[in-house]
């Protein structure tokens, strides 16, 4: 698992990058009540706003961690946004994306570096 400074996690499954938010981020957000997901097939550039998470407190943007194409989104979250709090690093992934070069992940933080990052 790799992490961004925006508190997203990335893992590779079947040559696709699966993206979600960290346990730390989900705790900070508070109870999630709505997740606005992109359309599959959307081409995105790094730092594009691709997902909006509405918690009981406010709306937060999730940015594309890399350049690529969104190929699948987690429709479960439409009916069960609370999953983001219950299982942020497991079932509550947001989208899967196809990227040119999987080695770009190597530049991101690993678990130990992320733990240090959030203090």
């Amino acid at each position, binding site marked *: 698992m790799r992490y961004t400074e925006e508190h997203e996690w990335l893992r590779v499954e079947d040559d696709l990058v699966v993206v979600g938010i960290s346990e730390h981020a989900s705790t900070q957000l508070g109870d999630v*009540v*709505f997740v606005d997901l992109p359309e599959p097939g959307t081409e995105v550039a790094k730092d594009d706003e691709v997902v909006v998470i509405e918690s*009981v*407190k406010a709306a937060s943007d999730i940015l594309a961690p890399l350049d690529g194409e969104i190929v699948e989104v987690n429709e479960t979250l439409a009916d069960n946004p609370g999953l983001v709090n219950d299982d942020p690093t497991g079932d509550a992934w947001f989208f899967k994306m196809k990227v040119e070069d999987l080695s770009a992940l190597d530049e991101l933080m690993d678990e130990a570096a992320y733990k240090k990052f959030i203090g």
Partner: protein
Amino acid sequence: MGMAELERTALYQLHLDLGAKMVPFAGYDMPVQYPMGVMKEHLHTRAHAGLFDVSHMGQVILRPKSGNLADAALALESLVPVDIAGLKEGRQRYAMFTNDDGGILDDLMVANRGDHLFVVVNAACKAADIAHMRKHLGDRCDIEEITDRALLALQGPSAEAVMAEIAPQTAAMRFMDAAAFPSKFGELWVSRSGYSGEDGFEVSVANEQAAALARVLLEMEGVAPIGLGARDSLRLEAGLCLYGSDLDETTSPVEADLTWAIQKVRRTGGEREGRFPGAARILSELETGPKRLRIGLLPEGRAPMRAGTDLFAGETDEKPVGQITSGAFGPLIERPMSMGYVEANHGVTGTRLWGEVRGKRLPATVSDMPFRPATYKR
């Protein structure tokens, strides 16, 4: 305002001990949530009982210089469009200070406590409210800001049984009764009221006894500490206005759909008609209807429509007909809910409007409030 300048209530240390997340609010360092979290705190209050620290609010005593309470009541009537002279001893009533343009300076609670009026005002407005009362009522009333007492709210279906353990006489109170009772924690000034849509109490207690009282309440079955986050979603689900969001110096009580708070005796043809600031506008709006109206709104989807969202009559209309002033997810009704203002002809219950959320027009239906019926013990 820097963190160092924030004021603390008598329960500050208790909030820290309970693991609260503290935020600046109206000049105070206040708990926005406890480890339970906003959603569970909200549902807990509706199912059992929630304890809120509302000590940041202003507590003010108005004593008539003449010794005759009617003089204080009539004096206060010069600042509010509400029947205060007709408020019976031991009863409390909702009111609002209006300005000369008929806008709302603050909303407040007024209780007749026999030889004085007890007034509770919003934290953010209290300095201005007290100055306003001193300026206009100072010749007829002694105005005393109570700074040595905390204010707790105990809200929810278990509140009656819990409060009876502290002061048994409170169980016989009805909604909007107000009285003082002796207790192990000194004299308590209790009203059967609150701002959650639940049955419950607001309890004024001496600062030095407040934390002890709160700790005893929290040890009782079903009582959990509740922060400002859930206080906001509870009041919105109950259709209650938040001053500064849903009410301000430009909104009249008629636009705000608070006409129920303006008794007949203060209206045109009433015995004490008018003679409050902004009476010309407010009385005329009562006759002919306001231009805009506060409404409840239920978004059709799951996306919350928050404060500032523009409202349109049609999916492609260019000109908005109103704006949302409060919006959140309703934990009990399990859907998003909003309130806002629209041009009055678009405010009819059942009307479909469109809110613009992140550039997308999403449908929402004008709805009666409260979104969740109140459970007051009348």
